[in-house]
């Protein structure tokens, strides 16, 4: 179920999601928050089993904190995604997979990044991406609307209209749209120690 969307622009990144949590043919919640903050520079949009997704995000948030304390500068967006992918891969290989998909969007010292990972642990960097049951519909909007060189505001509009379109035709998605954008200016600069 769910529709989530991530878009990369030159000015930053955008995540968007619907707000429906389904329990079979029943709508379990109409106000679900599917975009989770990792810190001021990175957010994750989740699709699938909420408990599995939240467990992975919490584990990675803790690991990120430990690593940045140890080495003195934060994990990049890709490194953060890799941590989620590692656990997902282990889960798949031990026949206890985490039933979740993730879009990780954030800004770091090397710029803005949007990455996707899933229960197999596969990891890919994308310009725009959507997952969840509504994603075929959302991709229709993204494929026709995405342009290179978009600014953050244009990407916000595109992301929410993609989710909006999915909510119209996918019974697993609905009840409103969340949009989050992270501008490049949020990135932590790595302080070069003399």
């Amino acid at each position, binding site marked *: 179920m769910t529709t989530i969307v991530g878009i990369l622009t030159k000015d930053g990144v955008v995540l968007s999601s619907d707000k429906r949590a389904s329990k079979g043919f029943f709508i379990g919640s109409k106000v679900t928050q599917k975009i989770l903050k990792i810190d001021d520079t990175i957010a994750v949009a989740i699709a699938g089993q909420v408990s599995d997704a939240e467990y992975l995000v919490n584990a990675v948030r803790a690991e990120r904190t430990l690593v940045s304390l140890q080495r003195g*500068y934060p994990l990049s967006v890709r490194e953060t995604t890799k*941590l989620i992918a590692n656990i997902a891969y282990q889960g798949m290989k031990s026949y206890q997979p985490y039933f979740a998909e993730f879009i990780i969007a954030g800004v770091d010292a090397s710029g803005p990044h949007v990455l996707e990972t899933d229960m197999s642990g596969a990891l890919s960097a994308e310009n725009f991406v959507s997952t969840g049951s509504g994603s075929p519909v959302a991709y229709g909007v993204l494929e026709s609307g995405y342009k290179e060189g978009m600014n953050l505001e244009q990407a916000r509009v595109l992301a929410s209209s993609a989710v909006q379109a999915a909510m119209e035709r996918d019974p697993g998605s609905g009840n409103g749209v969340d949009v989050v954008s992270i501008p490049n200016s949020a990135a932590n600069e790595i302080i070069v*120690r003399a």
Partner: protein
Amino acid sequence: MESQQLGRTPYFYGPEGALVQVDFALEAVNRGSTTVGIRTNEHAILASYLKPTRPLLDPAEKIYQIDQHLGATGAGYIGDVMKLIQELRVNSQKHRLTFDSPIDVKTASEDLSAYLHQYTIYAVRPLGASVIITGKDPTGVQMYQIDPSGTYFRGSGFSIGAGSDRSIEIIQNGYRPNLSLEETVKLAKEAIKSATKDDNQVELGVVSNSSSRFEKINQVQVPSSAQ
């Protein structure tokens, strides 16, 4: 003391509170070949004295590539040094598998420090080796020294091995943060010469902000006696 008389576990602390085994390990390092590291604003070099070997024997390798961006050298028992080098190499590759990124110099040093520390709390022989690690990471060119106790230092000038008291003095006096690569190499060789009276057999490695690769410089000259 009682346990000592029973002839089972060795002692850890001496009556003064010193970790006796660790102090002995440090003494072993002081018998090793003179090895220095110098870090400037732009680059860092490692230099190690190659003890003259008998004819038909190749000198041992003393500067080790750890990863593309990381290098290390050591002084002390060569077997112990190699164990630490292997540990560094394995940790660097583990980091790449876990994070999809090269390990930073601080984490590499702290991992090795934790490894050495394990040998100070159990009834085992602490490794008789110190290493100097250098490399380029997002925080710039960094250099660390790690001792058998697990203590590590970050800095710009290090010397370990025989005569290191003398060679560190040469480095301290000649150091400027804006030394050129040639000047840094010269200073390192001078430092080694002050301790060994011989600068012919020196192996060198360098990493710089611009290239961000650690590379060995092959400057091992044929000793004049063999020409």
